[in-house]
């Protein structure tokens, strides 16, 4: 759905995006993570044909950036970093204007559909300026979807929202995902990326890494299992360390942290061995490094 090859953007001497190569499959939710000023918004602007690249090429929804700009704008939806509504106009009027600009056939129908879907129908006649931040963000999301784009770019969709409004927006993104739309999600919210994204790319002027959150965890930290026990003897740690498939074994208070390649197959063997040694295993869980750990590791590399 999105193919990017060596995409670059230079403003004078400043390199904003350096040779970005990436592809996003149809129906995928791709998380684009990076610090402020990393070039995420510049990338989104290039992919939505708002600004032109200085190098490389990108194809979005079958249309090439720089060559088929109008077709790209017609076929993608974008939620910009700031909602940018017409505050003096009603919610309905705001959406009607954009539906017409996107060439939507059933303007009134589509406007009503998204106002209802996002819970704004009752407030459709109110000026957008009177809306809360969360309502404005929902209105901006509706605006991005009026023309039913297959590819949607969301730039910081939950930024500055309270937890309840952020959850509403996240749930809506999950609905879009379920509808099979391709979503390119720029976010600082790593928990959000972890929950919603099929794959994530960590970006700071250039792409530092790209993979699924689970694969990135494994690549950086391997898979680790924590055995919680009533008590822990040092010889048990040594005994497990001696087992050929155990990559590492650490005692942390009464817990045993074991590095494994295939916990699903190897956990039962370990439990059996621990029981043989006289250990009382209370419960077993997988140690999950947060996406924040992974993100910081790459950004500071």
């Amino acid at each position: 759905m999105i193919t990017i090859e060596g995409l670059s953007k230079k403003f004078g001497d400043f390199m904003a995006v350096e040779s970005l190569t990436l592809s996003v499959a149809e129906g995928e939710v791709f998380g684009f993570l990076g610090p402020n000023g990393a070039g995420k918004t510049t990338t989104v602007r290039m992919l939505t044909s708002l600004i032109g690249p200085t190098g490389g090429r990108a194809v979005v929804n079958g249309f090439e950036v720089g060559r088929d700009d109008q077709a790209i704008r017609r076929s993608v939806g974008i939620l910009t970093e700031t909602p940018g509504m017409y505050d003096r106009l009603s919610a309905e009027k705001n959406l009607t204007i954009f539906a017409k600009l996107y060439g939507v056939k059933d303007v009134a129908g589509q406007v009503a559909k998204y106002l209802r879907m996002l819970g704004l129908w009752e407030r459709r006649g109110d000026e957008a300026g009177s809306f809360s931040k969360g309502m404005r963000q929902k209105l901006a999301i509706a605006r991005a979807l009026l023309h039913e784009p297959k590819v949607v770019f969301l730039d910081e969709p939950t930024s500055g929202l309270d937890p309840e409004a952020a959850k509403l927006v996240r749930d809506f993104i999950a609905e879009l995902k379920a509808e099979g739309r391709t979503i390119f999600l720029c976010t600082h919210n790593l928990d959000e990326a972890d929950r919603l994204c099929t794959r994530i790319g960590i970006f700071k002027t250039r792409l530092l890494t790209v993979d699924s959150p689970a694969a990135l965890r494994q690549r950086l930290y391997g898979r680790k299992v924590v055995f919680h026990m009533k008590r822990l003897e040092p010889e048990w740690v040594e005994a497990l360390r001696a087992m050929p498939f155990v990559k590492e074994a650490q005692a942390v208070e009464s817990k045993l942290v074991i590095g494994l390649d295939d916990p699903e197959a190897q956990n039962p063997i370990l439990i059996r061995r621990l029981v043989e040694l006289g250990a009382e295993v209370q419960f077993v869980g997988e140690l999950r490094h947060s996406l924040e750990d992974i993100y910081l590791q790459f950004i500071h590399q």
Partner: protein
Amino acid sequence: MDKIWTIIDKEWAEVFKNRLVLFTIAFLPLIFTVLPLGILYGVGSIEGGGNNTDLPPQFFELCGPIAPDECFQIYLINQFLVLFMMMPVIIPVSIAAYSIVGEKTTRSLEPLLATPITTIELLTGKALAAVIPAVLATWISFISFIILAPLFGAKPGVIAYIFSPVWLLAIFVAGPLMAVVAVNFAVIISSRVTDPRAAEQMAAVVVVPMLAIVFGQLAGVIVLNVPFMLTAITILLIIDIGLIYLGAQLFQRETILTKWK
């Protein structure tokens, strides 16, 4: 064309909710119509209707064989012509300044630029949204003046003079051309400032040449005749083309998003 009308509709719906802009559009034509009528009435009530010997000598060419009091009225009317020509300059500056700088401050330009509208459609929509009310207000004001002038003491020769080529060229050709100058000037100014009032004040500089004409007329240096008007129209056309080109360069998506302050 649909997209241009959508932009015009949006601009009018938003800009006309701004009381300051609405005041400019409504108040200016009203004052610029009432003021000449009041002066006409005042002059008509003076015995003899004015003294022809006070007129600049170049002005006698315009009067020809008509009576001195009528000629004096024509001289005064000619000053009002510049007032009518100021309207299509002042009104669009207010609308364009609020429309463009307003979008900058609310950050609503980016979503707009992300739609499949071309920059020419967008610029044309915004320009027409400012030019149309200004030109219509000028024309309505002018027609009201024609209708009401006889009731306020205008002589028949004066009414005939208002329908002369100089006035018709000024109101129906030079006026719209000046409105286009004003809008494009406002676009250029708006690209550099973040406060609509600052944009409006800076763009108001376009009124200065009009004031120069007023004082030139009063001093007898300039006479608004057909050759003058045709020269002015030619110069305005050239300025329009230059400013439209500059405005269109500044109104490119990339320029707006990366260079506008």
